[in-house]
């Protein structure tokens, strides 16, 4: 592999001690150790992300166990085809992300960059669909808490316990937090794309691509559960 020299491999000048690739931080012995630390950190972070979302899933299951009829009735107001379309977008973006990481792995930076752009495009498409869905909910007053139907018919007078505002509260918190993750993911993908274009990655060093990929797959993973639970209650 030594013939596949990295762009940064010769940037040792000025370090004042032994040679090492530019991508290797001083506090690591070798690239494997650096990569291992970075990926372990990422998996730990993903673990905390799962724990955070698990609280919301638990809230959902609790609401559903207490007010099954209400959840059943009001999930009909979510457009399941919009949800299915978004599932399609996210799963496809996960594929392109995985292929982008693979391309970086085998040193095809150009292909990797293109696949990252496709991933970003699918992420944006997801957010556009989400925007359309949210707009429809706002318009019809399908909102959490006090805001439910407020500007449509002067607010909710009764049925506070187990009312539909609970369902839309859970809906907006879960899809909202997920949407924030999609937006952050898009931002990270842009950053990785720019770095890829600058030739920062090679077959020896592509850990950031891989870690952003892990984050993006996690976003997909959460949606895989959100979609049937919110849109397909039956």
């Amino acid at each position, binding site marked *: 592999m030594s013939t596949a020299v990295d762009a940064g491999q010769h940037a040792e000048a000025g370090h004042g001690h032994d040679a090492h690739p530019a991508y290797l931080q001083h506090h690591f012995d070798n690239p494997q150790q650096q990569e291992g630390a970075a990926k372990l950190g990422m998996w730990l972070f993903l673990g905390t992300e799962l724990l955070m979302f698990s609280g919301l899933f638990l809230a959902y299951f609790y609401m559903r166990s207490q007010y099954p009829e209400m959840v059943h009735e009001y999930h009909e107001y979510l457009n399941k085809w919009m949800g299915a379309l978004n599932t399609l977008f996210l799963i496809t973006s996960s594929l392109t992300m995985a292929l982008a990481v693979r391309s970086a*792995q085998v040193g095809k930076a150009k292909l990797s960059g293109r696949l990252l752009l496709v991933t970003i495009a699918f992420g944006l498409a997801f957010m556009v669909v989400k925007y359309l869905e949210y707009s429809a909910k706002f318009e019809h007053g399908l909102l959490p808490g006090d805001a439910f139907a407020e500007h449509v018919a002067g607010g909710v007078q009764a049925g506070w316990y*187990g009312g539909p505002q609970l369902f839309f509260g859970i809906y907006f918190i879960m899809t909202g937090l997920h949407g924030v993750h999609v937006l952050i993911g898009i931002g990270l993908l842009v950053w990785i794309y720019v770095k890829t274009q600058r030739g920062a990655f090679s077959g020896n060093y592509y850990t950031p691509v891989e870690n952003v990929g892990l984050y993006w797959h996690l976003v997909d993973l959460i949606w895989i559960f959100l979609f049937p639970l919110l849109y397909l209650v039956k």
Partner: protein
Amino acid sequence: MAKGYIRGREAAGVHETHHHVMPVKAYLGVFGALMVLTALTVLVSEMNLGSAALAVAMVVAAIKSAFVIGFFMHLKYDTRFHSFVFFGTLLFIGIFFLMTFIDINTRALVNKDWGNTAWVLDRGVEIPPAPVPHEEGGEAHEPSAEVKDGEAAPAPEVKDGEAKPAAEAKDGEAKPAADPAPAPETGR
């Protein structure tokens, strides 16, 4: 070539990293499986399986997750310690869910013993009539929202107008001393 270190000692060849590269076909196969399972999820929801629907949907979602985590996230070929972190997380999520569900499913029993009406009525458990104010009970039966063109249906009618926790709190009437439940939110 550049020299590196292993545990502080100089060593040759340490900059070489060896990664498992999955073939593109494998990724496409996983993608295909995910698409089929997504279609299956939608189909199942159309079939009106009743109480089994949630379980089926969750099993399908779990299989999809296994594909994403195992292949897209590469956990199958990754350091086993990463699997340990991941499954450790799942274990704690499991404990979190289990404890909460034990609480939810035994609450009715406890509340019945304590004479807490608000929770027990929700679960349809027979209890002796509780002193609950009736003054604002009529309000509970009003439809929540009259929406034009039927976009948003009115809130589901409360089955039992006898005990409206919301009305209870509005009246500010003292609840039975034995009632351990926190004051319900009125939301107003």
